[in-house]
C-alpha cells in the first residue's frame, strides 16, 4: 500500500479538534441547525396555513367535509367489478374498493404483458435478421411518438367496430367476439379444483427443493441432474392426478345469446380490453428501448469470452448477458411500471371504471372533492410505493456484489 494517499483529515493527528456546540454564528454546526429549524418551521407554517384556509373556506361555503360518505349507500352503477356490487345496497367505500381492484387488474396484467412484449421487441431490434430488426425499430419509433390517449381512443373505437352480439364472430366453440366484448366459456369452480390448486402449491415447493438439490449435486460432481421431468410431474401431473382422483369434475358454462347480450361465461369488456391493449402496446415500446440499452451496455468482450468457451448464442444471452443487463435495465424499468400504473387513469376517457373514474363520480355525487382527490392520491401513492419497494428489493438482490 505504499504510495496510497491518506486523507489527512482522517489521521488522528490532523483531524479538526472536536468541540462542543457553541451558540455562536461562526460555528457552522450551529448555523446549520438554525437554518434547518427555520426552513422546517416555515414549511410547517405553510402547511398549517393551507389546511386552516381550506377548512375555513369549506365552512364558509357550507360544503360538507369528512369521510362519513364512505359508509353511505352509493347508488352509482358500476359496469364491471371483481367483487359483488349492488348500487342500492353497497356503500361508496365498496365502490371505491372496486375502483382500486379495477386499477390493479389493469396494472398487474399490463406490467406483465408489457415486460414480455417489450423484452421480445428489444431483443428483436438487436437481431441480425434485417427484417426483424427493422420491424421492431419501426414499431418502437411509431408507437412511442403517438400520445397514449389517442391510442386508447383508437383501440376503443376499433373494438367497437366488432359486430353486434347477434352477428358475433365465433372463431372457437364458446368464444364470441362482439362489440360487447370477448366472451369465453367459464369452467365452474368446484371443490376438487381447490385441492388441485393445493397440489400445485405442493408441487411448486417440491420442484424448488429438487432444483436446489440438483444445484448441490452439480457443485459436488459437476453433472446437473435433469430438473424438467421432475418439475413436469410435480407441477402438471400431480395436480391433474388429484383432480382426477376426486372425480374429475368439468362443467363448462357456455356463453349463450339471450335478449340483448350473452349470458354466462366470462367477459372481457371492450373498455378493459382497449385500456390494457393500449397501455401494453405503448409501454412496451419504452421497455424495448430499455432492454436494448441494457443488452448493449454489456461489453462485447462478455459475448466473445462466452463464445470462446463454446456456449451457444442462446445460452450466452440467457446466462451471461441478460443477468448483467438486468442491472442496467431494472431502475428505468421501475419508472415504466410506475408510468403504466399512473397512465391507467386515462381509463376515464374510454369508460373503464378504475379508481379515478369511480372517485370522480363519488366526489361529484357527494360534492366532496377534496376527500375524493385525496383518496385517488392515496391509492396511487400506495401502489407506486409498493412497486418501487419491490423493484428496489429486486435491484438490490441482483446488484453486482462487490467485495
Amino acid at each position, binding site marked *: 500500500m505504499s504510495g496510497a494517499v491518506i486523507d489527512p483529515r482522517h489521521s488522528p493527528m490532523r483531524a479538526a479538534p472536536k468541540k462542543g456546540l457553541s451558540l455562536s454564528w461562526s460555528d457552522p454546526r450551529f448555523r446549520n441547525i438554525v437554518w434547518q429549524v427555520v426552513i422546517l418551521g416555515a414549511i410547517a407554517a405553510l402547511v398549517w396555513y393551507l389546511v386552516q384556509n381550506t377548512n375555513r373556506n369549506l365552512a*364558509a361555503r357550507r360544503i360538507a367535509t369528512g369521510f362519513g360518505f364512505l359508509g353511505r349507500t352509493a347508488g352509482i352503477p358500476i359496469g364491471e367489478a371483481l367483487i359483488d356490487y349492488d348500487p*342500492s345496497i353497497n356503500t361508496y367505500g365498496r365502490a371505491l374498493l372496486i375502483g382500486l381492484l379495477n386499477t390493479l387488474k389493469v396494472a398487474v396484467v399490463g406490467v406483465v404483458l408489457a415486460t414480455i412484449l417489450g423484452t421480445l421487441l428489444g431483443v428483436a431490434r438487436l437481431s441480425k435478421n434485417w427484417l426483424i430488426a427493422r420491424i421492431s425499430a419501426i414499431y418502437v419509433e411509431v408507437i412511442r411518438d403517438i400520445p397514449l390517449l389517442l391510442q386508447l381512443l383508437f383501440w376503443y373505437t376499433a373494438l367497437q367496430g366488432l359486430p353486434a352480439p347477434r352477428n358475433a364472430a365465433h372463431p372457437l366453440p364458446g368464444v364470441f367476439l362482439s362489440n360487447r366484448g370477448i366472451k369465453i366459456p367459464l369452467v365452474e369452480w368446484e371443490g376438487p379444483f381447490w385441492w388441485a390448486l393445493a397440489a400445485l402449491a405442493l408441487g411448486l415447493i417440491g420442484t424448488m427443493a429438487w432444483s436446489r438439490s440438483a444445484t448441490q449435486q452439480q457443485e459436488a460432481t459437476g453433472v446437473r441432474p435433469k430438473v424438467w421431468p421432475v418439475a413436469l410431474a410435480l407441477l402438471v401431473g400431480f395436480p391433474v392426478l388429484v383432480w382426477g382422483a376426486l372425480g374429475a369434475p368439468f362443467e363448462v358454462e357456455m356463453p349463450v345469446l339471450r335478449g340483448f347480450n350473452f349470458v354466462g361465461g366470462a367477459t372481457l369488456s371492450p373498455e378493459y380490453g382497449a385500456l390494457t391493449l393500449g397501455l401494453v402496446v405503448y409501454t412496451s415500446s419504452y421497455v424495448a428501448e430499455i432492454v436494448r440499452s441494457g443488452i448493449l451496455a454489456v461489453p462485447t468482450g462478455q459475448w466473445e469470452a462466452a463464445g470462446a468457451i463454446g456456449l451457444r448464442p442462446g445460452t450466452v444471452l440467457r446466462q451471461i448477458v441478460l443477468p448483467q443487463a438486468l442491472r442496467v435495465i431494472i431502475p428505468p424499468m421501475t419508472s415504466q411500471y410506475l408510468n403504466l400504473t399512473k397512465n391507467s387513469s386515462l381509463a376515464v376517457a374510454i369508460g373503464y371504471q378504475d379508481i379515478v373514474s369511480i372517485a370522480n363520480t363519488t366526489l361529484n355525487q357527494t360534492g366532496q372533492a377534496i376527500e375524493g382527490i385525496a383518496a385517488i392520491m392515496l391509492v396511487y401513492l400506495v401502489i407506486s410505493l409498493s412497486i418501487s419497494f419491490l423493484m428496489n428489493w429486486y435491484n438490490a438482490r441482483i446488484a453486482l456484489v462487490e467485495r
Partner: protein
Amino acid sequence: MKRSILSGALLLGATLALAAPVKAQGSGSATIDTIKSRGQLVCGVSTGVAGFSLADSKGVTQGIDADTCRAVAAAILGDANKVRFVPTTTTNRFTALQSGELDLLVRSTTWTLGREGNLGLLFAGVNFYDGTGFLVKSAAGVKSVKDLDGATICVQPGTSTELAIADYFRLNKLKFTPVLIQDLAEIQNTYLAGRCDSYSTDASGLASFRFQQGPKAEEHVLLPEIISKEPLGMMVRKGDDKFFDLVRWTLFAMIQAEESGVSSKNVDEMLKSTNPDIRRLVGAEGDLGKSLGVENRWAVNVIKGVGNYGEMWDRTVAPLGIPRGINNLWNKGGLHYPPPIR
C-alpha cells in the same frame, strides 16, 4: 427608516384587506358588485347540447341555458351580451361554481336535496322541467323500458340520471350493464357505434341528440317512459342572498312577462300600460328593481335582451321538436307559476 416601516405596515394591511372576503358595496351583494366592476357575467354552461347551450355557426352560444345566463346579465348590466360562457363537464361543474370561477351555473343541472345540502350551492329556480328518458335504435324493436332487461346502457357518470336508472331497474327487478363515459361526444359515439343498446339522459337531451342526427333521426326512438323528475335550473353559491334573489326573480320576471303578454316586441309600449301588474314589472311604478340591487328597468332589459319565457322557448327548445308540456304556464296546464311581482 420609520417611514418605510410605516408604509410597509400599510402595504401589509392593504394586502390583508384585499385578501379578506370582498365586502358588499353599492348593491348589497358581493357577486353583483364583482359582475358590475368586471362588466361581464361569468356563466357555466354545458360543453354543447343543442337547445340548451351550443355554439352556432357564428360561434355564438345558443340555447335556453345560455339565454338564462343572458337574462341575468341583462338584469345586472343592462346588456344581454355581456356574458362569458364557460363550458363545464358533469364532473367539474360544481367545483367551478364553488371555487368562484363562475358567478352562475346554468347547465341542465337537476335540483336535488343532496346537492343543496352538501355542495354549498343553491338552486335559484327551474328553467326547464325534465325527466330521465331512454333512446334506443328503432331496429332493436324495443317498445318500453321494461323490455330493456339485460341491456347495456350508455350514461354519463356523476349525473342524477345514473342514480335514477339504478333505482328504477332495481325497483322493477331488471338488470342492466352501464357504460359510463364523462365526455358527451364520446358517450354518444359509443352509443351510435352499438356498444350500448340504449342511451339515457334527460329526455330533452335525448331529443336534442336525436335532432342532431339529421336525416338519421328516424333510426332512433325515444321510449315512452320518463322514469324520474329532473327539474333543471340555475345554481348560485350559498351566502349571497341578494344575488340569489336577483337570479330567481329574473326567471320569474320572464315567466310573468309571458303571462302578462309582455314580449320583446311590445315592451316599450307596455311602459305606458295602465295595468298595475305590468307597470310594476317594467319598473314604471314602485322601486322593486332597487330592492334587488339593480336598476328599476331591470325587467325591461331582460325582456328586450332575451324576450319572455315563451319567446326564449320558441327560439331555443321548440325547434328540437320538444312539446311545451309541463313547461307551459300554470294557467295553461304547465308548472311555471311565478309569484306576484309586487
